[in-house]
């Protein structure tokens, strides 16, 4: 396996300069996630408007390049989408990481699909899958207003 398959330029770039980093104003939902194996942490701040559309989505936290890039890419993809679409994108992403390597969603543009598929190399590194999925599980938790923090060790 070529390391460049994992650390593609898009990932390195998002890892170094994450988008939507910080706490957005007037967020309506939030959730925390952490990976006890490495100590990575993420907080997701979600602002839904009256039409249940994701008006803003930001994050704070610390982690490896994979986890930061994955979170950053997630915020870009989900912003502006309806909450139902957001949920579908999350499921699609998790399937891609775990099995299919492809994004089937009709809700993303070609460019967006290309960006998110840059993370599919993670599948070849089983120990790193949780780095990539932490934020996505945390977003689900925020949408569903779950009380408990996300713990990657408690998730398949």
């Amino acid at each position, binding site marked *: *396996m070529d390391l*460049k398959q994992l*650390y593609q330029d898009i990932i*390195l770039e998002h890892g170094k300069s994450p988008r939507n980093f910080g706490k957005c104003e007037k967020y309506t939902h939030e959730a925390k996630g952490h990976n006890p194996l490495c*100590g*990575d942490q993420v907080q997701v701040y979600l602002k839904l408007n009256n039409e249940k559309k994701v008006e803003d989505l930001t994050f704070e936290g*610390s982690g490896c*390049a994979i986890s930061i890039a994955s979170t950053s890419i997630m915020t870009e993809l989900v912003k502006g989408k309806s909450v139902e679409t957001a949920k579908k994108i999350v499921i699609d992403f998790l399937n891609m990481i775990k099995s299919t390597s492809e994004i089937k969603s009709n809700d993303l543009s070609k460019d967006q699909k290309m960006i998110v598929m840059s993370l599919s190399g993670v599948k070849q590194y089983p120990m790193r899958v949780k*780095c990539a999925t932490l934020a996505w599980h945390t977003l689900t938790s925020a949408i569903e207003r779950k009380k408990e923090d996300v713990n990657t060790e408690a998730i398949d």
Partner: protein
Amino acid sequence: MDIKSIKSQFPILLKKINGKPLIYLDSSNSSQKPLSVINSLDYFYRNEFSNIGRSIHSLAVNATNKYEETRMNVKSFVNAKSKDEIIFTKNATESINLIATTFGQEFINKGDEILITELEHHSNYVPWHYLRKSKGAIIKFAPINDDGDIIIQKLKELITSKTKIIAVTHLSNVTGTIVPIKEIVEIAKKKNIPVLVDGCQSAPHLKIDVQDLDCDFFAFSAHKVYGPTGVGLLYAKKKWLEKLPPYIGGGGMISEVKKDKITYAPLPEKYEAGTMPTAEIVAFNESIKFIKSIGIENIIKHEKELTNYALEKLKKNNSVNIVGNPKNKAGVISFTIKGIHPHDISTIVDEDGVAIRAGHHCSQILHERLKLTATARASFGVYNTKEDIDVLCKAIENCRKVFELK
């Protein structure tokens, strides 16, 4: 000391990982096993296996003798006074749990204090936390300085009339700090406080003399001392083992069982209930022989040289930050690289066949104290060479290339 011949005794070190020769730098996590240990497991199961201590037949007698031979050699390995002071457990974690549970049951009451340090592995904190929950005990942390040394004066000041036990590591699994146990025991003795030493990291790398240290309890794991998994060791002064209640109940640890009364077996069986990992304990004897054949003084000297060489080389790389700078340091080097998370470092060097650990190494209190969420760690065993460190340093340089950092 002929490292090549030592290395050749470890079959796994001939393996290739990702097409490159394995460079194993994760011995603080667990050490690899020499052929003599692997062969012993095989031989025992093929020729000598029987459960011990229960049957009269010849196989059982021989297996029991082998099992007890390891105990005798562990006794001499740590220089205990009596073989009755050596208890076999599952791992060092269980050894510490054994003491925390039984000592807690007998001697810890609400408001009593347990003094540990900021250096501790979770296995020397969580068992005491149970007593905080169940008994209302208080846990105090002796602080460390930025170098990773325990501030002995502060530890002294934290001792009160309520302090019931001090539990401290002998060698940090993160900073490599060698803790001055004798000094701490001396302080504790003046106040009649027993000291438990977590010797997981020190047992394979330092000379262990429990009589000289004068600690009350010393816990370690066979698997870090070139031995099999599933075997933990507990040294405890006889006066404690006689006073403390048994831990796990069942067969083998009893003397007489009546409907209304149970009496317990004498030491050390009192603490070894149920069928033990017999083959592994027998094979651990070979690990001790392996260390003896090289000589612990030679091992210390070799690992010191390796550590100094690695530190010198790593310090030349400006992007590498070494965690801690203790007065006495063993072959454990935790580090960070500016702009690259330890997990990414580990994945990238793994591509070059280099096995290091990344994360908080079960020491979250220490990482929090040093304001780090995670570190990368290279740790050495007797089989490592300067060439291994050269490969590590090259692999680290590759991290910056992959990340396109200047």
